[in-house]
């Protein structure tokens, strides 16, 4: 499998200057809205601690809670299926649909079905799929994966959407008015809701004590997908289980505040018992999660509630775009999840970080994201998955940093050298660092020279 080159992929995104600037600004705006929303809640930090503890407890007792959820969901009249991996998940969904002669599916947004690459699998078998979340629909029509787990088309400008819609649903290519575009999608989507044979959602939470599937949306598309067709399928990752209804109080208060800065999503929907005369199917999906649960340093990533706050705050994500990660999950949370799916393929991702720790400080369930990123780097270098140039540079740096005299000589020489080096040497293709950066002007003294001159003597006098 080809290794994702994050730096190379993001350079494409960076070339579109207006896109990068908008992307950066839009996501930072979400981060600031998140800050304001959380400041309204005096117990915010306590809620983060509680949310983390509930998730850690649940994961430590996950088998029991999964059985409890299955028991209660079955009692409610839902059918519970189990999928080891993506392929089994897709087959189960297809079998449920085809055995009931269902050909059309309206879908709410689900990262899990993206992770399983479900759409092409079903489409090849003749199933017509309508993604009903606006952002996800834009991405479906443009044949691109979502670039953000909450706002899937955030990397596109309105003119991009006008292009996609004019080529697919027949809007006026010159009209990029956002109200016009959104209204066009509403009009286009409505007949699908009315005629669909089946509806599908993911889940934000699945409650063990009641067998309830909880879905949070702003568009109301999940409720339309479930409340109209006679067949409802929910795909749920096994880490979405929470023990009791009362725990929703903690998570629902944090989810939308962390994601978009609003107090709650416009809709918070609880599906427990199928409507009379209809069927409800729940597919519990493992796809690597049970393995991750056994990884001492990395099981904490299973606490994630998919709010996207870590992506909105990440300087690398904001300036490289979600698609550059080449994975379903991008940004800081993707960086720590993706290598568990395929270490070699995603070995460049843990280096798409400045380790500033901002992701960790906004995470509503207190995942130590930046520490996990650092640990992945260690594993990747131990397993020899570093690209050649990075490895050579690291070895030279390692030698320098372990020998103080050599280091000082090198710093002095570099200080003198940078001043006089010709540009072609500083900014050559061998020096990845120099590609998008200018070296700042070096101060007249190094810190050590300054220290020896100003402080060392005074210290000695004391």
């Amino acid at each position, binding site marked *: 499998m080809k290794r994702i080159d994050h730096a190379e992929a993001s350079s494409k995104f960076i070339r579109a200057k207006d896109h990068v600037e908008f992307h950066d600004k839009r996501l930072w705006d979400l981060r600031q809205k998140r800050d304001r929303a959380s400041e309204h809640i005096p117990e915010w930090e306590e809620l983060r601690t509680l949310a983390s503890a509930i998730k850690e407890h649940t994961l430590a007792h996950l088998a029991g809670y999964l059985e409890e959820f299955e028991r209660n969901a079955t009692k409610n009249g839902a059918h519970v299926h189990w999928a080891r991996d993506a392929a089994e998940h897709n087959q189960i969904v297809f079998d449920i649909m085809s055995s009931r002669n269902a050909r059309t599916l309206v879908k709410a947004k689900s990262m899990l079905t993206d992770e399983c690459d479900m759409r092409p699998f079903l489409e090849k078998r003749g199933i017509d799929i309508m993604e009903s979340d606006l952002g996800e629909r834009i991405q479906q029509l443009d044949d691109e994966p979502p670039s953000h787990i909450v706002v899937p088309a955030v990397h596109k400008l309105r003119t991009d959407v006008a292009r996609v819609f004019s080529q697919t649903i027949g809007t006026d290519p010159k009209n990029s008015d956002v109200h016009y575009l959104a209204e066009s999608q509403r009009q286009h989507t409505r007949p699908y809701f009315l005629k669909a044979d089946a509806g599908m959602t993911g889940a934000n939470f699945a409650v063990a004590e009641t067998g309830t599937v909880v879905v949070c949306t702003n568009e109301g598309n999940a409720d339309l997908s479930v409340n109209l067709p006679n067949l409802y399928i929910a795909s749920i990752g096994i880490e979405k289980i929470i023990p009791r209804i009362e725990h929703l*109080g903690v998570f629902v208060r944090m989810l939308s505040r962390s994601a978009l800065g609003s107090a709650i999503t416009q809709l918070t929907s609880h599906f427990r018992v199928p409507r009379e005369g209809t069927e409800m199917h729940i597919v519990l999906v493992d796809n690597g999660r049970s393995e991750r649960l056994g990884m001492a340093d990395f099981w904490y990533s299973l606490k994630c509630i998919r709010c996207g706050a870590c992506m909105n705050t990440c300087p690398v994500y904001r300036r490289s775009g979600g698609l550059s990660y080449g994975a379903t999950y991008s940004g800081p949370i993707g960086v720590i999840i993706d290598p568990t799916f395929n270490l070699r393929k995603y070995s460049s991702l843990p280096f798409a970080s400045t380790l500033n720790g901002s992701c960790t400080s906004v995470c509503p369930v207190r995942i130590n994201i930046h520490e996990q990123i650092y640990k992945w780097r260690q594993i990747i270098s131990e397993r020899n998955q570093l690209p050649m140039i990075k490895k050579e540079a690291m070895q030279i740096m390692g030698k320098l940093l372990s020998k103080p005299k050599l280091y000082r000589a090198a710093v002095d020489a570099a200080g003198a050298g940078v001043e006089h080096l010709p540009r072609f040497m500083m900014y050559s293709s061998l020096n990845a660092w120099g590609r998008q950066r200018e070296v700042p002007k070096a101060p007249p003294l190094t810190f050590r020279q300054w220290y020896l001159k100003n402080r060392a003597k005074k210290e000695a006098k004391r």
Partner: protein
Amino acid sequence: MSSRDEILERVRKNQPAPLPLPPIPTFDAGLSTSIETFKDSLARMGGKFVDAEADGNLDAQIRALFPDAKVICSATSEVKGNRPIEGIRTPQELHDVDVGVVRALFGVAETGSVWLSEAEYKVNALGFLSQHLVVLLDPSHIVANMHRAYQHHGFVDANYAVFMTGPSATADIEGILIHGAQGIRTMTVIPVPTQR
């Protein structure tokens, strides 16, 4: 071995050592349950709030609020409308409803949410296929925050339960806020005490 048993076995083998489940406080000391707080929160989420007319004629008030509405479908006996919900056999029949009317069981001051289930809606799709939704809410049926809200027995009893907080919305294109993404374009809450 079945997928179920295989997954459960691997989870059991890999799950970390037992950790305690913390008690959850309700964080509601000193919090308001007033209709005013609810109203402010609802406004932040794009919902409308209109006081009931003194004459108590809700049908006339709703017609005045939505003068262009052709189909008004009410799931509450307090408003008659012109499309009786009792006659609806499939949810798709509600596709042409301009204004849906429903009475919420309770509201949440923290968020401006109203709680609805199949018992209130009769046909759940009324809350999503209608172009506009009018919600009657007893101003004395308001809880302080989401912790209080989730103590409600409705979450154990109802087949389907939803917190609705303002209209359907999206900001998926350039962050521009649009009301009426896929579901209702507006939500109007009218405070009306429950008749005893």
